[in-house]
């Protein structure tokens, strides 16, 4: 009964609005654009931040990445004359890290170097990653063919290599290439598998794997290629001794990540004279990115909110004019026996219907715009449930907020005066 009454009131409100189609449409336009811009802005903002978040998630939210960096003073001296710089993480660091923390689940050391590689007739420079089977668990990637490095390969010092899809394609390796011989530097390796790779930046750190990676057992890399690397920069030979370039640490729970990172940093501080290492915690970056996203959304949202506000004021303006114009009608209704609150209700329903309807059209517009943006610019946009419900809720709130004053004005009309009103 009550529901049918509300439905009837809404129907009467719509009927009344349809009497002035053009005016109602123009009044609604403000809310249409307001809601449209809120929805569009939110989805563009959401798309941008989700893209960043997805990148960061690839690093693993349980992970801590410790990498070797050349300390500042080392960089200074190395430019003056050729000498050997010794820096970075050591095998001992890896052992200590993996043994000292209860909250660490596993660690993957990595030795990185660039080597000219050749498969049959094709050659290209690949990034050789000397690592352990843990790598593949910490940087989980899809399989294309074959298998990954096993503990047995390390123990047996087996010269085996896992290619990444991109590198494999460049070398014309296929599933059939598993078992073939890959030459890295001067040494022969057996291709045992191909995996997919991800590439790109995540926030401001490189994600662990690259698309030109080739993975070999760490011990093999150490015995075949040693710890000393040559770099040829502008005429001077440069030598570096780096044992490990990276250690990826996985903790048991994301909430421990930051504490463990602090612990590792303190421990490394005890054994390193110079600060030749850097830690990055993807989770911290994730949090930071989320905070940025929130700020971003608030800024965008408030800009769009201003247009909603303008739309609301437009509605209020028209409704105030409408109340004046319909003074006589209000007087008639009051004389017949309508109570003040019924008049308030009548006008409020009209405003809310108007703004809700405008909100709905705006929503359509706001969903369409991001689709067009994605289509033409390739920028990711995401329309979330919140991104839809919030503007609808806001448009209803605007209807009530900006409708209440004109409606109260309408109810204040004195029937005696109104009936004489021409």
């Amino acid at each position, binding site marked *: 009964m009550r529901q*049918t*009454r509300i439905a*009837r009131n809404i129907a009467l409100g719509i009927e*009344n609005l349809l*009497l002035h189609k053009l005016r109602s449409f123009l009044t609604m336009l403000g809310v249409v654009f307001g809601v449209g811009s809120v929805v569009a802005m939110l989805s563009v903002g959401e798309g941008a931040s989700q893209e960043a978040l997805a990148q960061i998630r690839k690093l693993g939210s349980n992970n801590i990445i410790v990498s070797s960096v050349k300390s500042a003073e080392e960089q200074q001296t190395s430019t003056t004359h050729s000498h050997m710089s010794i820096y970075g993480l050591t095998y001992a660091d890896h052992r200590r890290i993996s043994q000292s923390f209860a909250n660490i689940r596993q660690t993957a050391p990595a030795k990185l170097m660039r080597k000219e590689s050749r498969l049959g007739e094709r050659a290209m420079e690949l990034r050789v990653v000397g690592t352990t089977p843990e790598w593949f668990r910490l940087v989980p990637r899809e399989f294309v063919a074959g298998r990954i490095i096993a503990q047995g390969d390390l123990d047996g010092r087996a010269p085996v290599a896992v290619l990444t899809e991109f590198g494999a394609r460049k070398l014309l390796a296929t599933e059939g290439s598993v078992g073939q011989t890959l030459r890295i530097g001067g040494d022969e390796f057996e291709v045992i598998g191909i995996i997919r790779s991800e590439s790109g930046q995540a926030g401001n750190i490189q994600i662990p794997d690259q698309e030109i990676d080739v993975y070999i057992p760490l011990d093999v890399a150490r015995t075949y290629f040693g710890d000393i690397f040559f770099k040829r920069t502008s005429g001077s030979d440069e030598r570096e001794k780096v044992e490990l370039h990276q250690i990826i640490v996985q903790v048991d729970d994301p909430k421990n990540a930051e504490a463990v990172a602090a612990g590792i940093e303190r421990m490394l501080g005890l054994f390193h004279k110079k600060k030749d290492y850097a830690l990055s915690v993807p989770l911290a970056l994730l949090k930071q990115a989320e905070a940025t996203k929130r700020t971003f959304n608030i800024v965008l949202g408030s800009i769009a909110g201003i247009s909603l506000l303008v739309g609301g004021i437009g509605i209020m303006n028209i409704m105030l004019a409408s109340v004046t114009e319909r003074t*006589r*009608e209000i*007087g*008639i*209704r*009051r*004389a*017949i*026996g*309508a*109570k*003040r*609150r*019924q008049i308030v209700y009548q006008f409020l329903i009209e405003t809310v219907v108007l703004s809700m309807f405008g909100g709905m059209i705006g929503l359509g517009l706001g969903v369409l715009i991001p689709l067009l943006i994605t289509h033409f610019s390739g920028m990711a946009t995401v329309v979330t449930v919140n991104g839809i419900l919030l503007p609808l809720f806001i448009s209803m709130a605007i209807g009530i907020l900006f409708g209440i004053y004109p409606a109260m004005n309408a109810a204040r009309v004195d*029937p*005696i005066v109104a*009936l004489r009103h021409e």
Partner: protein
Amino acid sequence: MMDNQTAPDNGHEIVRLENAWKTYQMGTEEVHALAGVNVTFGKGDFWAIMGPSGSGKSTMMNILGCLDRLTSGSYYLDGKDVSKLDDDSLSELRLRYLGFIFQSFNLIPQLSVQRNIELPLYYLGWDAVRSAQRARELGEQVGLGDRLNHRPTELSGGQMQRTAIARALANDPQVIFADEPTGNLDSATGVQIMEMLIKLNKLGKTIVMVTHEPDIAAYAHSRLHMKDGNIDRIEGIHASNENSQKHRTGHREPAAS
């Protein structure tokens, strides 16, 4: 006056004013639109309220029609003192017991004839089907059965006033107030409308009409002439009733209230 008149004395009266004052503040000056009026209308009466402009007849109408409140004094409607009621309660009274007919018809131009007739029923909370049914019946009763879907602007003056009468009847009122009902009509149409009012009166409706035209007032059983906010004289079949006597007491100083 204090003790013996708090309740109506019989079941025949519908409207009673006791020492009714309505005072407006015009700048520093006080204007008494009603100055201690005492009057009683019986159930089923047909009254015409007459008088020159400024005599207080419109104010009287607004008070009796529960559109306005007395400054002091009492107004009994069907035995109940309504002079102290709030706005909502007065609206409720208008909705349930009173019907209005105006000089300028006061139909809502955007609504069809049927919708105009339905208006009181909407506020009474009737459902759409029943309201439409009743509106059709009333429309036919006033001879507008074929005009129900027209807009008021497409009707003649007489048709508009008949729509207004149908609307006034929708809530089956006890009293119908007619404010110059023929004022905007030609005399032939005016006669039709008056005949319609007489018919309603015969069916038992109390009618209170404000007019300044003596030949229209002649349709009423009784005529109440107002002057300077009070009753000047009463003519017709109720001329000999208590009103004339009350009229004299009504001239007492306001200190009595």
